[in-house]
């Protein structure tokens, strides 16, 4: 594989990916999201390119403020506008440019073709309506007749493994536990048989045992229906368990992407390396110091020249302060926004200072 610097926007980058079966279901090209205040616009998500192929499981990893949630909200046209809006770039879904659609066109895709599950089910469900009313309402909004909607509601509640669907559909949200509510949310998302499910930290508020059930549930449905899944999370364990492609975001841009196994075994961006080292895992000795990333992530709205990670990076050199690195191909389907290739890095021990 050539190590030459290569902008990822070109077709040459795509040629290297392992999953190229047909057209991407979802593609983001040069997406920039920002806040426009008075006449000045500051971009907080910059130049994001990513694609999701049918049936693929993509993970978007990043810390709070990395822009991962804004990125997926932009896909659904759900950015909190004002003040946050899509400033540039193109989002295509199944070959259709979402930017050319009016609100009604977008509403048709949102919910029917692309469904979303949020972190906190308690705040995404209406506390005053019974579960059944909310699911049936969703289906009716997409044109299902009442009887069919009722039947489908029962069916999907069954599908998500809820013990007593008859009781759950009559329940109000407060009568259900967090795990049950998240199942209801997933049932609601699946009711319309979407081709893409976007899950924004859907298990963060749940206990690990319940998280495990939700992960298995989504994997199950995914295997059965072949829908694609975009999983937004900060939990690298969840990523390792369920996704096959990873995008790592830092300070509003994609800093690394690649197949899950490659990315975990051979990270190509120092930030990914540090994130992996900061967690105790198999092979970490008891009480051995963990990799510390000094400093804090920069404010994506106030970035200085150069690489946004350089102040926290032990491998930074002159060029990093001058020029921001583009995504550079580092292997089959792997690209990282770092001027140095991993073999030019010093030993990872350099992190401990």
């Amino acid at each position, binding site marked *: 594989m050539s190590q030459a610097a290569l902008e990822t926007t070109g077709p040459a980058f795509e040629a290297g990916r392992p999953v190229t079966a047909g057209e991407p279901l979802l593609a983001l090209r040069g997406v920039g999201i920002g806040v426009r205040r008075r006449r000045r616009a500051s971009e907080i998500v910059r130049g994001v390119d990513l694609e999701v192929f049918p049936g693929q499981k993509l993970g978007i990893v990043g810390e709070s403020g990395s822009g991962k949630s804004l990125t997926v909200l932009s896909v659904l046209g759900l950015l909190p506008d004002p003040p946050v809006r899509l400033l540039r770039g193109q989002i295509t879904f199944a070959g259709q440019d979402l930017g050319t659609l009016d609100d009604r066109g977008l509403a048709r895709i949102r919910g029917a073709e692309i469904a979303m599950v949020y972190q906190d089910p308690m705040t995404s469900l209406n506390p005053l309506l019974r579960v059944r009313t909310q699911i049936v309402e969703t289906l009716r909004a997409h044109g299902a007749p009442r009887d069919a909607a009722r039947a489908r509601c029962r069916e999907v509640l069954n599908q998500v493994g809820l013990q007593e669907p008859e009781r759950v559909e009559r329940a109000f949200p407060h009568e259900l536990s967090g795990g049950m509510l998240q199942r209801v949310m997933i049932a609601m998302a699946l009711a319309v048989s979407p081709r893409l499910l976007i899950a924004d930290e859907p298990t963060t508020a749940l206990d690990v045992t319940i*998280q495990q059930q939700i992960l298995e549930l989504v994997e199950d449905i995914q295997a059965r229906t072949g829908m694609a899944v975009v999983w937004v999370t900060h939990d690298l364990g969840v990523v390792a368990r369920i996704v096959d492609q990873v995008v790592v975001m830092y300070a509003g841009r994609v800093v690394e992407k690649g197949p899950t196994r490659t990315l975990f075994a051979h990270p190509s961006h120092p930030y990914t390396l540090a994130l992996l080292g900061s967690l105790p*895992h198999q092979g970490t000795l008891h009480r051995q110091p963990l990799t510390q990333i000094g400093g804090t992530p920069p404010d994506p709205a106030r970035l200085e020249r150069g690489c946004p990670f350089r102040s926290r990076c032990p491998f930074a050199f002159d060029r990093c302060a001058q020029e921001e690195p583009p995504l550079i191909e580092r292997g089959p389907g792997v690209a990282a926004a770092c001027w140095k290739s991993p073999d030019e890095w010093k030993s990872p021990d350099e992190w401990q200072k």
Partner: protein
Amino acid sequence: MAEIVLRATDIEKDYPSRRGPKVRALRGVSVALAGASTLGVVGESGCGKSTLARVLVGLEQPTSGRIELMGELVGGTVGAGLARRIQLVFQDPFSSLNPRLTVSVALNEVLAVHHLVTGRPERRRRVDELLTMVALGPRFLERYPHELSGGQAQRVAIARALAVEPRVLVLDEPTSALDVSVRAEVMNLLSRLQDQLALSYVFISHDLAMVRHISDTISVMYLGKVVESGPYEAVLGAPLHPYTRALAEAVPLPDPEIEAGRRKAAAGEVLTLGAEPLYGCPYHPRCPLAEDLCRAQVPDLVELRPGHEVACHIAAREAPVGTGPAARADQKETSP
């Protein structure tokens, strides 16, 4: 084993409930913490781990049971002198620091309230020393909490806890509210402080990887009871209680190779306090191994291996006292 600095015996904590029976948050919990060591407490939400933290530091009075700190009975007539030997660090540093006080004022206040350091220059020196301990320079003195990152704020909260020279820190989810990249910083700091100051920690978390990383011994709680406790390698490496096994298997590890080969095991819905079964082992409705005995009789916490206690009828039957590593491997194979 080093001397025991903190020992809680048969702690019960009930909360009255307006309708229905009282909520029994802790039911006969006993823990012991050796000097300069860490006790990890794990369990799902609602298992009583935060209640235990509050009871240990004296924020809540236990309904019954005794707590001894450095050999002395806590509560009753014992004054602040003993109470300050145990301090609590909360999950969210921003809600535990006063937003209107600078770091310097917040730390000075603690020293003044406890009459620890008299004289302004001495106090100033002590504040500098505390900040140095948590690896923050004097430039942080005049900062307000909103001018700190999550990791820095948590370090200030730790410095404030250390100001009163405690022997024991109770850390209630100290890294859960922090971003992944700064968790390591707080964990490394805690390890270093423990070595420097011979501190003992009660480390409460649902993050099993972090608990395993820092703890010497681990107690697993379920519905207000300790169901398994012992050395960290034994409890998380070769768990004997089916609940600990379910918990350990549920945590996704940041390693796709391991994840690919993992068994799938669903663990059933969590029961909330007050919804537990009336008879038998509190875990039996979720337990894949439950038999008639489990539905009828509450298992006692029994020492099945040296220092390793388990409250499970089946584990007790299958792993008789004194079995070696061979039996341990056998035990693993028979797990669900």
